[in-house]
C-alpha cells in the first residue's frame, strides 16, 4: 500500500518539475529574444550610394546599418599590389579577385575585425588601412597582414545598380 502511495507522489513530483521547467523556458525565451535586432532595425537593410564623384585613389565612407562602409576607387598600383601577394603570406587567405569583382572598386565594412574600430585610410605598413585602437595593418585589398585582428575586413553584399550607383545590402 505504502509503496503505491510513494509512486503516485513521485509521478506528481516529476510531472510538476517537467511542466515547470518547460514553462520557465517558454517565459525566459521571449525575455532573451526581445534584445535581438527588432523589425525596424532589420528594415534598414540596404542603401544606395552615388559614386560618380569618386576619383581613383580616394575613399568614400558611408553609413550602412550603423556601420561605416569604405568604397575605395583603387589606382592601378594598388590593384597590382593586392593581386601580387602570395596566399601563404596572408593571415586570412582570400584572393583579391574574390574580394573586388571589379578590380577598380573595393567595397567593404570599415570595421576592424579585432574589436570594431574604424581603421584609417592610406596608413600602415601595407599602404592600405591601419587601425589606431590596437594596431592592425590591412593591405590595399583590406586583408589583415599584421596585428591582433583575426580576419580581413568584411565585404558586404553589394551591386552596381548603374555605372554610378552602388547598392549595399
Amino acid at each position, binding site marked *: 500500500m505504502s509503496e503505491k502511495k510513494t509512486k503516485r507522489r513521485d509521478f506528481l513530483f516529476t510531472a510538476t518539475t517537467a511542466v515547470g521547467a518547460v514553462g520557465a523556458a517558454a517565459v525566459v525565451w521571449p525575455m532573451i529574444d526581445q534584445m535581438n535586432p527588432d523589425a525596424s532595425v532589420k528594415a534598414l537593410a540596404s542603401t544606395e550610394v552615388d559614386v560618380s564623384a569618386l576619383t581613383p585613389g580616394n575613399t568614400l565612407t558611408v553609413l550602412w546599418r550603423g556601420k561605416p562602409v569604405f568604397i575605395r576607387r583603387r589606382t592601378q598600383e594598388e590593384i597590382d599590389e593586392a593581386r601580387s601577394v602570395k596566399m601563404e603570406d596572408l593571415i586570412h587567405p582570400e584572393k583579391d579577385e574574390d574580394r573586388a569583382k571589379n578590380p577598380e572598386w573595393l567595397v567593404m565594412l570599415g570595421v576592424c575585425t579585432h574589436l570594431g574600430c574604424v581603421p584609417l585610410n592610406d596608413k600602415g605598413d601595407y599602404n592600405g588601412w591601419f587601425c589606431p585602437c590596437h*594596431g592592425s595593418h590591412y593591405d590595399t585589398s583590406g586583408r589583415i597582414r599584421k596585428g591582433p585582428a583575426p580576419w580581413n575586413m568584411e565585404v558586404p553584399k553589394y551591386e552596381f545598380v548603374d555605372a554610378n550607383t552602388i547598392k549595399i545590402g
Partner: protein
Amino acid sequence: MSDHDYRPKSKVGQWFNDRLPLLTLANHLTDYPTPKNLNYWWTFGGILTFCLITQIVTGLTLAMHYIAHADMAFESVEHIMRDVNYGWLIRYIHANGASMFFLAVYIHIFRSLFYGSYKAPREIIWIIGIIIYLLMMAAAFMGYVLPWGQMSFWGATVITNLFSAIPLVGEGIVTWLWGGYSVDNPTLTRFFTLHYLIPFLILGLVVLHIWALHVPGNNNPVGIDIKKPSKDTVPFHPYIVIKDGFALLMFMIVFAFFVFYAPNILGHADNYIEANPMVTPAHIVPEWYLLPFYAILRSVPDKLLGVVAMLSAILILAVLPWLDTSKIRSAVFRPLYRQFYWILVADVLILGYVGAMPAEGLYLLIARVATAYYFLHFLVILPVLGFKEKTLPVPLSITEPVLGGSPNLAAARNRESKIE
C-alpha cells in the same frame, strides 16, 4: 547572532523585537567585537559603503534629468551641466565618485592581499567581494556609455566586441547585446537599464559580504584567530565607528578635491565630443581603473587568447584562497611573501601605466613581461611559497605584540626582556 541574548529595555521595544528582531540586529552591530589592533587600512569597508550610497543617491537624481536616447543623451548631459540647479555638482560627484569607489576598492583588495584576509575561514567573504568588484566594473563601463560621447561610443564598441572572440556564437552574441548591427539606440537604452539595476545588486551583495564577515569576525594585522569577545577585542561602537568616521572625513577631502578643483582630470576630453560612428578617436583608452586589464588584453597578439587572458586575470582572484598555500595569514610574519607582495603592487601599477600608452615598441614589451609576471605570481610563486617560506613566529594573542610595541614577536619579546 545566535551568541546574542539581547532584550530591549522598553516594553514597546520588547513587543516589537519579539515580532521582528531588528533591535537584536542593531545591538549585534553595535556590540560586534572587533580586534583592537585594526589599522586605518581596515577603514575602507566603511568608505566603500559611503561610496555606494553616494553613487546611488547622485545616480537617482541624475536619472531625473537624463534622457536615454541616442539623439538626446549627449544634449541632456550638457543640459544637466548648464541648466539643472546644481546639476554640475551632482554629475561631477557621480563621475568622480566612480573613480573614488575604485580607488577605495583597490586599497581594500590590496589590504586583503597583504594581511591574508581571503584565507580560511573567510573565502566566501572574499568571493562575494570579487563578484561585487566584477559588478562594479560592469556598472562603471555602462555608466561611461550613457553620456554618448566619442569615448562612450567607441568604448562600448570595443568592449562589446570582446564577445565576438567566442568561437561560433560570438557574432550572434554581439548582435544580441547591441540589439542591432552596431552600438546604437537599443544598446544605449539597455545599458541605462542595467546601469540602474546593478548598484542594487551590489547593495544586496554588500549585505551578504558583511553577514559573511560577521560569522568569523574581522581578520587583523597580526592575522591570528582571536577569542571574541575578549581582551583582544573592542565593541564596534564607539571604537570602530569613530575610527571609520575619521578616515571617511579624510577620504572625503580627497573626493572633494577632485569634484571641485579637478573634476575632469580623470576623464577624457574626447567624451565631450558627441558619438560619431564614422570616426574612431585616435587613441582609445578606458577609464584609469580598468587600465591594467586593458594592458593584459593588448599584450596578447591573438584576439581570443587576449580576451581569455584578460578575464582570467580577474577570475584568478576568485580561487586565490586555494592558490595561496601558506597557513600564515599576515604578511608581517612572511618575509618573502612581503617582498613578492610589493612586486605585485608595482607590477599592477606598471600594467596600468602601459595600458594608457600606445600598444607598440617598448610599451608592448613591458606589458608582456608584466602580464607574464602577474600570472606567475598567482600560479607559481604563491603556491610554492607556502611550502618553501620560513615564516616568523606568530604571537598567541593581539595583546602580546601590542604590549611589546611591535607586531614582530621576536622583537617584542626582546624589548620586553630589556625593559625587565
